[in-house]
C-alpha cells in the first residue's frame, strides 16, 4: 500500500515514501500541522536513537484539495519548520517524505520512515492509508 524507495551516496542514505491517506472525519488545518510536525520529529528522533551520525534533511509535503503543508528538519536541536496554507477541513491527502540521514543503513532508514508514518497515522486514529501516492 505504500510506495517507497531507497538511495545512497557514500554514508548518506535516503528513503522516500509517497502515499494517499484518508480519514472518516474531516481534519482541521491545525491538526494536519500537528501531525506532520510529529512525523518529521519522530523520524529524526528514531534515526538518532538507532545510531545515525546526523540528520541530513527530513522533508515532508502533504497536499489536500484546498492547500498544502510542508515540514522539514535538519536535526532535532534545530526544531521542525512547518508551513501551511490548507484553507479548510479535509478528509484526503497525498503525503510525500524524503528522509536523508547520515550513518544509518538504507534498510533501517526505510524501516524507520515507514514505521513512524504508520505509528503517527495510527495514533491519530482517524487516518488510514488508501493507496500509493504519485
Amino acid at each position, binding site marked *: 500500500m505504500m510506495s517507497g*524507495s531507497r*538511495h545512497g*551516496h*557514500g*554514508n*548518506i542514505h*535516503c*528513503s*522516500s*515514501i*509517497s502515499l494517499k491517506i484518508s480519514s472518516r472525519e474531516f481534519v482541521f488545518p491545525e491538526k494536519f500541522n500537528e501531525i506532520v510536525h510529529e512525523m518529521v520529529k519522530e523520524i529524526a528522533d528514531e534515526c538518532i536513537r538507532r545510531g545515525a*551520525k*546526523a540528520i*541530513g*534533511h527530513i*522533508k*515532508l*509535503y502533504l*497536499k489536500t484539495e484546498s492547500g*498544502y503543508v*510542508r515540514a*522539514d*528538519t*535538519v*536535526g532535532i536541536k*534545530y526544531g521542525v519548520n512547518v508551513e501551511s*496554507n490548507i484553507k479548510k477541513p479535509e478528509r484526503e491527502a497525498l503525503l*510525500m*517524505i*524524503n528522509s*536523508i540521514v*547520515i*550513518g544509518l543503513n538504507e534498510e533501517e532508514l526505510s524501516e524507520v520512515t515507514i514505521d513512524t508514518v504508520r505509528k503517527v497515522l495510527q495514533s491519530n486514529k482517524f487516518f488510514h492509508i488508501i493507496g500509493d*501516492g504519485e
Partner: protein
Amino acid sequence: MKVNIIGGFLGSGKTSTIISLSKKLYKEFGKKIAVIVNEIGEVPVDSKIIQEYGLKTRELGGGCICCELNSDLHSVLQQLYHLFKPDLVFLEPTGIALPKQIKDAVLFLRNKIPEVGVGYYVAIFDALRSEELLQEDLIEDLDYIVVRQLKEADVIAINKVDLVDEDSIRWCEGKLKEINPEALLIRLSTVRGDGLPELMKLISPDAAD
C-alpha cells in the same frame, strides 16, 4: 538562457531561495524562469513545493546530476531551451552534489547550444548549522562534501541570518573566508528578504536596475 546553480548542503535553504528569487524576478521584472530540481530520493518533495508557487519545474530524480544524471540534464536543458526559452534557469542540485561536475555539464552544453549561458554557482550555507558543519572533526563524508561545495562556489550566501546573532554570523564569515577567500559572501534571509536584492543583481543584472 542563463543557467545559475543554486547549490549547498542538505537543508541549507536552496528551495526557499529559488522560490524567493523567482517570485521577485518574475513579478517585478517579468523574467521568464524555469527551475530544474535534482533530488536524491525518488519522491519529488522540493519540486512539488516549488510548483505550489506557480513555477515551472523539471525533475531529475533518483540520482545525482554531478555523477549519474549528466545526460538527463543535457536533454532537459535542451528541451527547456527549445520549448520554453526561459531567460533564466535555476538548477537546484541535491544537497550532496559537487559543483564542478555540474558546471562542467552545463558548459559542455554550450557546444551544442551557444545561447546557453553559465551563470553563478551560489552555495547556500545554513548559518544556524554553522558550528556543526564547520567544526574540525566533522564526519568524514560530510567534511568532503561541505568543503568542496564551499571551495568551488562563486558566491556563498549565508542563509537564515535572521535566526542567529551578529557574533555567530561574523564567526561564520571568518571561517568561510578561510575556506574560499575568492567567493563573494552575502548575508541572506529568505524570510526577511535580506540579501535577495544583491543576489538578484548578480544573477540578472538588468533586472536589478
